[in-house]
């Protein structure tokens, strides 16, 4: 075996070749940044709660009611449609344009019924009213109807909540098993932070949360965990090998070492999700928005929330117990 310098064509394109940023030193900046977005989100959610009774606008999946999406042959006139619908007695219908420009699509929403007895009446009424009072014909094959009764709405709410909480619990257990409890707690706190800020963004931009958005949020829970685990894996490995470094030094070094991989993966996943947001059409818009925001925040939180929390915990324990702030290396990694 011999040593030789690398030939020019062998030198790769590389970002972050030798990075040496003091991440933990910046933790107060990170805290401020997180706080600003969290508080903005919470304030917005509070405002929504005061005006519509739920922290975020809810899609028809959860709030129940009737939502009819219609496509017209000619450009629809929202005012005329509203008059036609009101003429049939539906004064509390919400009418808004929908979809891409030039698609001639309109979304009409009726609020939820108290019980299931006239579940479908709303849709029929709308179609009849438009037939009677509005000259622009509807394209029948491009109609979408969602009618959700209060029973199903509540069931879906319960299911969504149950899935989210169980998911978080499952991951906490898994991380406890693979690492140590404090790693699991730090990761779950980071994920909770991500979910809060993402939902806050929905409140701030006044977008609806539907079932698919919940699916996106659950996915980004898994994704944020991923990211945090990669950093934790490296911290654990470095702790095993080092004898002299302090905990903050090890954590900083681990983050720097994994930075290249973190930015690349997040970047690539972000590009695919961006493609979904731009090209995926209006049905998936909420879903892809949640992922776009979630991926950015999820990457940020592994560095800015999970890692500092680990160190803070250890330092707090060291202060109480009087020993040096050294994290137990946790279980040996199985190779």
């Amino acid at each position, binding site marked *: 075996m011999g040593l030789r310098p690398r030939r020019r064509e062998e030198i790769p*394109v590389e970002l972050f070749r030798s990075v040496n940023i003091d991440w933990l030193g910046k933790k107060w900046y990170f805290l401020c940044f997180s706080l600003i977005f969290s508080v903005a989100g919470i304030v917005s959610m509070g405002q929504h709660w005061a005006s519509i009774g739920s922290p975020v606008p809810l899609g028809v999946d959860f709030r129940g009611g009737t939502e009819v*999406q219609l496509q017209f042959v000619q450009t629809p006139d929202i005012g005329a449609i509203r008059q036609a619908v009101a003429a049939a007695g539906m004064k509390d219908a919400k009418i808004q344009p929908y979809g891409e420009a030039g698609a001639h699509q309109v979304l009409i929403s009726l609020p939820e019924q108290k019980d299931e007895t006239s*579940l479908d009446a709303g849709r029929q009424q709308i179609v009849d009213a438009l037939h009677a009072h509005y000259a622009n014909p509807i*394209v029948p094959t*491009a109609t979408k109807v969602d009618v959700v009764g209060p029973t199903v709405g509540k069931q879906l709410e319960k299911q969504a909540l149950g899935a989210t909480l169980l998911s978080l619990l499952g*991951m906490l257990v898994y991380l406890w098993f693979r690492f140590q409890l404090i790693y699991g707690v730090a990761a779950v706190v980071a994920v909770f932070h991500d979910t809060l800020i993402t939902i806050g963004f929905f409140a701030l931009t006044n977008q609806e949360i539907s079932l698919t958005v919940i699916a996106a949020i659950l996915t980004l829970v898994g994704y944020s965990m991923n990211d945090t685990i990669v950093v934790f894996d490296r911290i654990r490995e470095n702790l095993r090998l080092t004898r002299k470094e302090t905990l903050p030094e090890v954590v900083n070094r681990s983050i720097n070492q994994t930075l290249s991989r973190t930015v690349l*993966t997040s970047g690539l996943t972000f590009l695919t999700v961006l493609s979904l947001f731009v090209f995926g*059409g209006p049905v998936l818009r909420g879903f892809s928005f949640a992922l776009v925001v979630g991926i950015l925040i999820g990457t940020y939180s592994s560095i800015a929330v999970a890692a500092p929390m680990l160190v803070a915990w250890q330092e707090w324990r060291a202060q109480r117990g009087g020993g040096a702030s050294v994290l137990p290396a946790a279980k040996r990694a199985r190779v």
Partner: protein
Amino acid sequence: MKKNLNGKIALIVAVLLVCVYGILGVPAGVSGKALTEALTKRIHLGLDLRGGAHLILQVVVSEAVNAETDNAAQRIQQDLKTANLSFTQVYKPDAKSHPDAIRIDGVSAANANAVRSLLETKLSNEYDIGGGTESGFTVTMKMPVRQALEKKTVSQAIETIRDRVDTLGVSEPVIQEYGLGENQILVELPGIDDLDRVKSIIQSTARLEVHAVVGGPFQDEQAALASVGGTLPGDEVLVHGSGNLAAGSETDSIWVLQRVSVVAGSDFRSADPSTDQNGLRNVTFTLTNEAGDRFWEYTSANIGKSMAVVMSGRVKEVANIKGAIRDRGEIEGTFSPDEVMMLSKMLRTGALPASLEYLEDRTVGASLGGDSIRQGVTAAVVGVLVVMAFMLIYYRGAGINADLALFLNLVILLGFLGYSSATLTLPGIAGVILTIGMGVDSNVLIFERIREEIRAGKAASAAVDQGFAHAWITIVDTHVTTIVSAAFLFLFGTGPVKGFATTLTIGLLANLFTAVFVSRVIFDAHLNKMEPGEMVSI
């Protein structure tokens, strides 16, 4: 040191071929059109991509329980009368919220024991008997019996709905139990966008019964009550209706009918439109044998009296009993051709054992479904191309490796969809796109590690070895967490969300195979060909 890779390469090629077959079957040709046709035949598309109707129905099982306890109450009355045991009344104190409870009032202390032993002999299999004091007896249906009855009601409803939906000619309808123990039914009908027709076929004659007429028709309720002496006896009931299928709903009269039906919808075996000897349209029907016996008993004892056909709580037709009927009969009246078809179809496919309520109702028009497919596929193609291009630029030679693994990943994922009955929904397509982004993470992990090892001075094959070894644990960790959250989504989600969870999970599992095994084989094949001292392009 050259490795023997032939076995591994054969495995990879085999997997590739199996999955391509799963996606395309054996296509008629290689033109774009033939391939698309083969593809759409193999892969099930969800309603949001195909267009169609999705309904969730609640089966009102308490109606079935009520019908059963009504029967039991009547039998108790008859038995007590036969045994000469006096009582004030047998009734159900709260039919709405406690359909399973019957009370017997006014039993004298002397008869209490006799009554109790009578009840126990006749009913103790299915009912619990309580009370026995001055306040009377309470007979309650046993819980397991009630639950079995409710389950049977739901599955009977499913069968009946399936029969009726079959007459619509929908391809691949989905009719199944839904919700955990909530007595709900899911109906999915691809390609249907006239929901009103579907609903009228499924639901409109939810309850069909034939009752004995005590008196009627009357103009209003006072007249009806006057005919029975002011108060309605417990075993009779007032029912509104037109009494004539051809009459409009403006004619509303009231009948006094026997509460317990003589025969019910489920007793009909067949019903067909026909014409009688005068050329008038009628419906000929046959009953089941057991119902035929009951009907014979009843009609022989009541010739000249009337029977009412009650549908959905309204009297639709009143017919005179012209002769004793066992199990073959006719319903006569002035029917239009449509009415006679509808009536016989509803009788023929059996009546629903209980009413259905709509809980959720979604339809997607076919052209919207097509739009969604186009948008989803565009997003997927753009995503894949961007990722592949990036990997080539950033990792050069190894980038080809990653791109091949990515391609195989997609083929395996689609092959799985082709083989299984999993449906592809729009969120499912999103799941495919996400798999690409997350899956390439595995490759990045490995390649970054290899670069580190090379930087540390290791030779090519050692660097590759170390890269794979160290990255493996992290890859497993990250895949497991995402798969765990996808698993919860699958358990708790409905149709489209389930589709997303499925593609994400399968995609990540396939990724474990392609990013680790297949990438390694490609690296090794390349290493085999390299000169000693040469470095991999990464």
